[in-house]
């Protein structure tokens, strides 16, 4: 399933990276510590986080993530938005808390672990 379909099904709003929504989402990863995402994120993961700092964008590029979803109605910082737009990195926002959003992603077939 690609990011565009997921956004549509879960009511995610796109804040940046609208040109990269065709990317296939291969899995999901949830963490608010960027050092942890650098260590454990996998290519094609959709990253669920409340971390709105600009460093999320280079981390997403480094790990070739499918995109970033900010939870609980959090909005990206201005610098984050600027960077994400410049590099076409998808940033989406959800009003849902992390647990609920991750549950719905899982129900759509987005795996947390890949076999």
């Amino acid at each position, binding site marked *: 399933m690609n990011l565009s379909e997921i956004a549509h099904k879960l009511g995610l709003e796109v804040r940046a990276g609208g040109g990269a929504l065709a990317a296939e989402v291969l899995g999901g990863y949830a963490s608010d*510590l960027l*050092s942890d995402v*650098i260590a454990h994120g996998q290519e094609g993961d959709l990253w669920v986080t409340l971390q709105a*700092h600009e*460093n999320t964008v280079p981390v997403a590029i480094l790990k070739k993530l499918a995109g970033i979803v900010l939870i609980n109605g959090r909005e990206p910082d201005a*610098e984050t938005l600027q960077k994400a737009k410049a590099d076409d990195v998808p940033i989406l926002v959800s009003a849902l808390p992390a647990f609920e959003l991750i549950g719905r992603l899982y129900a759509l077939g987005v795996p947390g672990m890949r076999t």
Partner: protein
Amino acid sequence: MSPPGVVRIARERGLDLIVVCDHNSAENVGAATRAARDAGLAVIGGMEICTREEVHVLGIFADDRALGSAQEFVYQNLSGENDPGIFGEQLVVDELGEVVGHNSRLLIGATSLSLRDVVHTIHRLGGIAIAAHVDRPRFSIISQLGFVPQGLQLDAAEVCSDKLPPLPENLTVVRSSDAHRPEEIGCRSTRFLVEEPTAPEIGMALRGAEGRRVLP
């Protein structure tokens, strides 16, 4: 960690200067300064400010006025009330260690201020901004944000072990104890070549200005 005890141990360990940086608070700096007055130990006041990314930043200030302004700014952006049953008493003491008050704010919490705002505000008040304990797995700029963001005007990074995480080449490193208990005081320290043990001189040493410098 009573002021007389901190001063005594610092002197025993051969320190000439300590910087007192409680979490989001500077209310015990005055007591530490007074306790050290006749002990041959210089005290500089500061705060370990917790940003909204939960990164700890040391703000170190030259005088009470700047420190007071920083304190006010932090309190305006810090919510919650301490539960002493969970987080312990937050005592305000005098130079003898006698309790003169309690701080009821949730000092363990994070402010609503961004890392960039905190560094900017420290500098606006004439202070020194140091990324705290960058080698620790919690609340450090590296643990929280993976790496030092581009363009962030830090004056130094504090390391409190023998580990050294990857840092920008031009960022000055200082070693200090990050002491939370008396026995940790002075377990790491940094030697500065300065005219006197004051915040402006330390700031110059961190910049390598006018002959002041951090010694290896």
